[in-house]
């Protein structure tokens, strides 16, 4: 029965994926980045004998690089030569087109349903090949292969590991009032291939990835009040981890995956706790009559940042993961909540409110200061989530009566709306790196 169920689910997911795949992504370049590197990605040729490929690899790669804000891919109509191998490349043509780099590639048959993708990255100025790699891919996962190629290119040129071949979790809702349908979804980092993780008639909230990307913790109200679940993505198996009196919310895995921070109000008001997942024992981390919630771990797992309104309005605080005295981190802005971290706790993005305007703000402490830049225009932006390489963030915004997701470069210069589904889309959570 389990088998039949998963099969039915699989078919259902396919339908969903196809529906969503038909939708297009809209690009919104906020200001543009004058230092974005020009790169030409030539359409990959299919040299096999099967049906034509249904994925345009060059488009996937260009889309990824553009979205990062650090590259500007040459438009398809400006590409006048179509080299497939290094020996075909005429560097002067690409110099004339003012390109710094060139990506070329071809796709070959290996076996039934399996393809071999060979690609090269060239430096136009020096006339050198920087990369020449091959990877194999199932026909149905060509977009995944495209994201992996974009990661290789990104890392080779910037020196920073790419994060395009990752996923995001998010929550959707359709309908109003008691007829609302909620779903927890997982999609590729560009919004393609959406798949349903859980559906519910009751609210779903706060998806959080395990460090190995294999599990999601989340909050569901299906038992009548907030409950923290952990679910394995491949099997769908799930467990209730917290269903105490009051709030059970805001789950966050520790960097080693052995502990789960969460918010419980079993004591009478919301406090941050850490659950040891081996024996489910709880350690209370905060002790204050204010609302303490939205824990996030620093990369070394030693500290937890959280939202508290102990000073009147919500602000970000830091506390040792074992508990103790909390210190205030955010000072600029009357309302700061829902922190997401990169580089230990040196870069902190949060939802910053001022009057009725909520924007994503980045607090950068890496140069010893407390520089705050605004990454989004508002008016009701929330739930920022850093890419695992810190180069971009996802966040939720409100357009008319619906919630939509945006990807924004960490410098705020390039912003892209991800059109994912009808209805309300919110609470994006960027996955950790996947294992190659």
């Amino acid at each position: 029965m389990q088998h039949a169920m998963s099969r039915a689910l699989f078919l259902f997911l396919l339908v969903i994926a196809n529906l969503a795949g038909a939708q297009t992504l809209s690009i919104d370049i906020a200001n543009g980045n004058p230092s974005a590197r020009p790169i030409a990605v030539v359409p990959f040729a299919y040299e096999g004998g099967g049906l034509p490929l249904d994925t345009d690899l060059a488009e996937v790669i260009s889309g990824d690089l553009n979205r990062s804000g650090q590259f500007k891919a040459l438009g398809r109509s400006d590409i006048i030569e179509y080299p497939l191998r290094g020996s075909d490349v005429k560097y002067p043509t690409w110099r004339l087109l003012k390109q710094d780099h060139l990506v070329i590639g071809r796709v070959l048959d290996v076996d039934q349903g399996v393809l071999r993708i060979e690609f090269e990255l060239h430096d136009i100025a020096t006339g050198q090949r920087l990369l020449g790699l091959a990877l194999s891919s199932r026909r149905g996962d060509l977009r995944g292969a495209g994201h992996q190629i974009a990661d290789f290119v990104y890392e080779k040129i910037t020196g920073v590991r790419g994060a395009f071949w990752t996923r995001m979790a998010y929550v959707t809702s359709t309908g109003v009032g008691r007829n609302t349908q909620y779903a927890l979804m997982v999609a590729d980092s560009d919004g393609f291939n959406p798949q349903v993780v859980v559906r519910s008639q009751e609210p779903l909230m706060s998806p959080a990835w395990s460090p190995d990307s294999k599990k999601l913790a989340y909050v569901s109200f299906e038992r009548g009040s907030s409950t923290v679940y952990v679910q394995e993505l491949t099997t769908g198996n799930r467990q209730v981890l917290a269903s105490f009196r009051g709030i059970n919310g805001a789950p966050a895995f520790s960097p080693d995956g052995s502990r789960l921070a969460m918010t419980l109000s079993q004591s009478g008001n919301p406090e941050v706790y850490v659950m040891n997942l081996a024996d489910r024992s709880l350690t209370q981390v905060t002790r204050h009559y204010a609302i303490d919630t939205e824990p996030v771990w620093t990369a070394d797992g030693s500290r937890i940042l959280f939202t508290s309104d102990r000073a009147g309005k919500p602000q970000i605080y830091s506390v040792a993961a074992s508990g103790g005295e909390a210190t205030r981190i955010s000072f600029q802005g009357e309302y700061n909540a829902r922190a997401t971290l990169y580089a230990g706790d040196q870069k902190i993005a949060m939802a910053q409110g001022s009057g009725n305007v909520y924007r994503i703000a980045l607090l950068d402490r890496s140069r010893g200061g407390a520089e705050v830049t605004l990454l989004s225009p508002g008016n009701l932006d929330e739930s920022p989530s850093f890419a695992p390489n810190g180069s971009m963030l996802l966040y939720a915004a409100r357009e008319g009566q619906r919630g939509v997701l945006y990807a924004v470069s960490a410098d705020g210069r390039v912003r892209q709306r991800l059109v994912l589904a009808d209805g309300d889309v919110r609470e994006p959570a960027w996955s950790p790196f996947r294992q190659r």
Partner: protein
Amino acid sequence: MNHPMRYLLIAALAVSLGACSKKVKEVAPAPAPVATTNPTPPPVVDDGKYDASDLETDACLRQRVVYFDFDQATVKPEYQAIVACHGKYLSDVPGSRMTLEGHADERGSREYNLGLGERRGNAASGAIQANGGSAGQITVNSYGEERPTCTQSSEDCWAKNRRAEIIYTKAQ
């Protein structure tokens, strides 16, 4: 549905003092001691206590929503009459049980709003207990901003979503 509700609420508030004191209304003044041939009607028997039938008929008990100001969890004076009659109901009908659902508007972060919704539920619970309800009769359940009754991004709409809803899970 929200607009009519609102007007109903305002109307109810306008008469709430009278309505809510229904059961403790003073008996009409005794007729003057003047000799008369008409016998006075017997006084209505009323022990001043609510019973389950009042839940759907009493103008005050029919009010089941308390609204809050932005980022606040204080039960405002205009809702004192509502929490008073529900407190009296819990006291008069000891077997009754209620859930107080706390809600927030969409502004700010979702998990913080879950906390804020609970704070509002607790504030309503405290006010109802101060009026005779006991803690064991009340369960507080916060939905944060996850169950809005109105989905426009406007002050009018936000005001309707910042609420605690009184839901009887057991009438008697």
